[in-house]
């Protein structure tokens, strides 16, 4: 090879590698300062370098080891079950002070859901220290990794043959990302005589996968319909029913819009909810969405908002279903397709749901990520964890039953728990720790996670503390949330998805594809939804066929 060419090639290779090392992905003509290892590790948006480098950069994160001293719980315990906005440095290792020979160390891995906020880590640390002080034969070692990195870090630990013993709190979705790796607890339950009667049997069933009991109830988040009482009073219509099975009493404009006489009891379903939502959607000239002069480009208040983190969850409010058909192929449940069409029409045809351009508007419409919390929406379906921002929703809101579809009311359900790794070397010790986390530690932990305790005796205290965070004209009817448990979606919308033909877990890729459709539907008017839904089914099948 010509030497000039050789020199040019070597120089080009070096430039490409060095440019890639710069850590920038912004195609400016200069290289901004490279992020530090810490900032890179903490940034979920940090892309992989263009130069082929080994995966799992999150492992470069610095570990802060917290000595096993008792840390008092924060006075401002977070009630958020969502990933924290101000995560602790990651990972935080809470190690036992000393481990004598013969003592079993159980590694607790957090946080695939809630638990990574500094104030939460403080309470988790206290729980560990309390356990370690009370047990001489078993010691807990905590590993707290921020949510944004927790999946990658856990996956890397598994790949490296170093999985933890206990993982949690983790929801169904998080657990399904590692499906097939959780221990069946049935033998441990039988061996220890663990008392299952402390939980509602329906909540125990949520964690069954076939014959396996892969989890036990810890924290649950039923759904409910949040609504602004003043918005209903202002236009002279009744509030939605609180009791599942009750009908809606249509009065005033609601009766007129529903074409029934004043005071008629009509089914509390999505047709009624649509009419109410349109009445409650008001433009800047005070016209509602049922009126001919309504201006959809100048809306002041929307009538309805669906929980839109996951299209499957949005479908589940219309009835439980699964994307996996009986023959293992991809399917779209009819009730989910109906829900998505209703939701899409609500945005772009009837205008009672904000479309993506308003939902993504972090300054005017949605600074908190839950539009109801900013008082811009009259009704919103959401999980109990959304109470973390309800203090911004004013002083006169309440919760009601979820509307019915085809005569069935379904309250989509989230639940977090702790799961034991299938290949743990210490299943007995891990189950002892699990009993502690579900038992003695559950009160404090569910409180900081903002989660309704699965153990009934802890609930009153939970709701008392939750209520104390709001200043309301009338106390919230929390019984609605409790009643929602009996209307949970079974199978859960976050149920496992099949392995592909190469034996790979398709869950993450499938959910990623579903999220693409969610973004598209939120932001694109005039779509043929029938075609879109059919295409989604084909896309899922393609992923599963790989």
């Amino acid at each position, binding site marked *: 090879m010509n030497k000039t060419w050789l020199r*040019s*090639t070597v120089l*080009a290779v070096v*430039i*490409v*590698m060095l*440019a*890639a*090392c710069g850590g*920038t*992905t*912004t*195609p*400016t*003509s*200069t*290289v*901004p300062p490279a992020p530090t290892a810490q900032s890179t590790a903490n940034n979920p*948006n940090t*892309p*992989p*370098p*263009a*130069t*082929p*480098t*080994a*995966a799992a950069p999150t492992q*470069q994160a610095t570990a802060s080891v917290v000595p096993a001293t008792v840390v008092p719980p924060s006075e401002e315990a977070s009630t958020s079950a969502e990933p924290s906005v101000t995560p602790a440095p990651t990972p935080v290792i809470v190690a036992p002070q000393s481990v004598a020979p013969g003592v079993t160390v159980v590694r607790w891995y957090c946080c695939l859901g809630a638990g990574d906020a500094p104030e939460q880590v403080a309470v988790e640390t206290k729980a560990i220290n309390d356990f370690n002080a009370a047990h001489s034969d078993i010691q807990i070692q905590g590993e707290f990794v921020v949510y944004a990195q927790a999946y*990658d870090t856990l*996956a*890397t630990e*598994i*790949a490296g043959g170093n999985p933890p013993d206990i993982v949690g709190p983790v929801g169904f979705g998080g657990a399904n990302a590692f499906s*097939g790796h959780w221990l069946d607890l049935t033998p441990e339950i039988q061996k220890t005589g663990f008392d299952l009667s402390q939980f509602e049997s329906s909540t125990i069933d949520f964690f069954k996968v076939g014959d396996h009991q892969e989890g036990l109830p810890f924290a649950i988040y039923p759904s409910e319909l949040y609504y602004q009482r003043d918005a209903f009073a202002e236009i002279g219509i009744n509030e939605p029913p609180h009791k599942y099975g009750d009908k809606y009493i249509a009065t005033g404009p609601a009766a007129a819009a529903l074409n029934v006489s004043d005071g008629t009891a009509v089914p509390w379903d999505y047709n009624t909810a649509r009419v109410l939502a349109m009445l409650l959607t008001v433009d800047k000239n005070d016209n509602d969405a049922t009126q001919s002069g309504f201006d959809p*480009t100048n809306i002041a208040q929307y009538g309805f908002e669906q929980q839109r983190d996951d299209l499957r969850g949005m479908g589940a409010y219309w009835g439980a279903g699964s994307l996996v058909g009986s023959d293992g192929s991809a399917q779209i449940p009819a009730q989910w397709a109906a829900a998505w069409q209703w939701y899409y029409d609500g945005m772009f045809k009837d205008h009672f749901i904000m479309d*993506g*351009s*308003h939902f*993504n*508007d*972090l*300054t*005017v*419409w949605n600074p908190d990520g839950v539009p109801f919390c900013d008082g811009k929406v009259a009704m919103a379906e959401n999980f109990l964890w959304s109470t973390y921002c309800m203090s911004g929703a004013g002083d006169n809101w309440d919760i009601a039953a979820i509307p019915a579809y085809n005569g069935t009311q379904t309250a989509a359900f989230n639940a977090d728990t702790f799961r034991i790794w299938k290949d743990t070397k210490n299943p007995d010790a891990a189950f002892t720790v699990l009993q502690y986390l579900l038992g003695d530690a559950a009160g404090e932990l569910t409180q900081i996670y903002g989660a309704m305790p699965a153990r009934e005796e802890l609930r009153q205290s939970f709701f008392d503390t939750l209520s104390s965070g709001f200043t309301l004209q009338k106390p919230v009817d929390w019984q609605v949330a409790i009643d929602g448990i009996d209307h949970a979606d079974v199978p859960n919308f976050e149920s496992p998805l099949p392995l592909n033909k*190469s*034996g*790979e*877990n*398709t*869950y*993450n*890729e499938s959910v*990623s594809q579903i999220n*693409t459709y*969610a*973004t*598209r539907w939120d*932001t*694109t008017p005039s779509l043929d939804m029938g075609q879109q839904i059919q295409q989604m089914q084909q896309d899922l099948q393609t992923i599963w066929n790989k």
Partner: protein
Amino acid sequence: MSGLTIAQRTRLAHRPRLRKLKPLERREALWGLLFISPWLVGFVLFTFLPTVATLIFSFTNLNLSSSAPFAFVGLKNYQDLLADPQVWASLRVTFTFAALWLPVTMIVPFMVAVMLNSPSLRGASLFRVLIFLPYVVPFVAGVLIWQNTLLPDTGWLNEGLRAIGIQNPPDWLNDPTWIYPGLVLVGLWGIGGAVIINLAGLRNVPTELYDAAKIDGGGWWAAMRHVTLPLMSPVIFYSLTLGVVEVMQYFLVPFVLKNGTGEPGGTTYFLNLYIYKNFFTFQRMSYGATLAWLLFVVTLLLTLALFASARRWVYYAGERE
């Protein structure tokens, strides 16, 4: 030797030969290596070895979402890559965007630098600071600000366009036709660094050459064409080379703005985003490594093409013949 030209003989005579270092030179070389060793160690540990590792991974089945035992699979990942329609779609997206992005981000900083370098501009220092200021804002924060600026109804840009009579301004981030101009707008916000580099280059152009051009009757355009551009060509080449490398890695803006979905209509599904998703969402480490190597090779070929073309248009005043 008799068949050689004078130039070739001169070059041979000046060619450095390997010789034994004197003790003082050896000591200096050791000190030099010692001072550079932190960078060398970091480079070897965090770039070179991982790069080699990904090459090895690309021949394996390493997948964190699979329980299959680790095994070498030969060229399977490369075969999968060739048959993967998303790879070609992502490459097409990357090149299409680069075709708009590169000219704009080359020309605009250059023109801004020319204006800042103008002797008739008053308050040039203030303008320099103002133009550089956005560059120091964390980029993710900047992108989020732009996300709101480009909103169709309440965004400042469209509010401004409506104020000047454009009643239906574009939906910058959701319309496939307008997404690339929208992304370019976001990127232009951070051109302060490029402006400074261009400005430094312009400051190095000898003013005598402009005087000579003036005496020869040349106007502004002639001076730009025959003086500024040739003398700035090394800076332009430098910016272009890095620009190509960086646009091939384009990731952060679409990832933040569109949550990594590739919307609208797949127009933001850049190759680097696909690599990221394979590594960190789908957990297909081997395939991600294979894609990363594809990106590396494509970027390398483009860079080589640039170097090959440089002989024709880059002028180095101090270059020896």
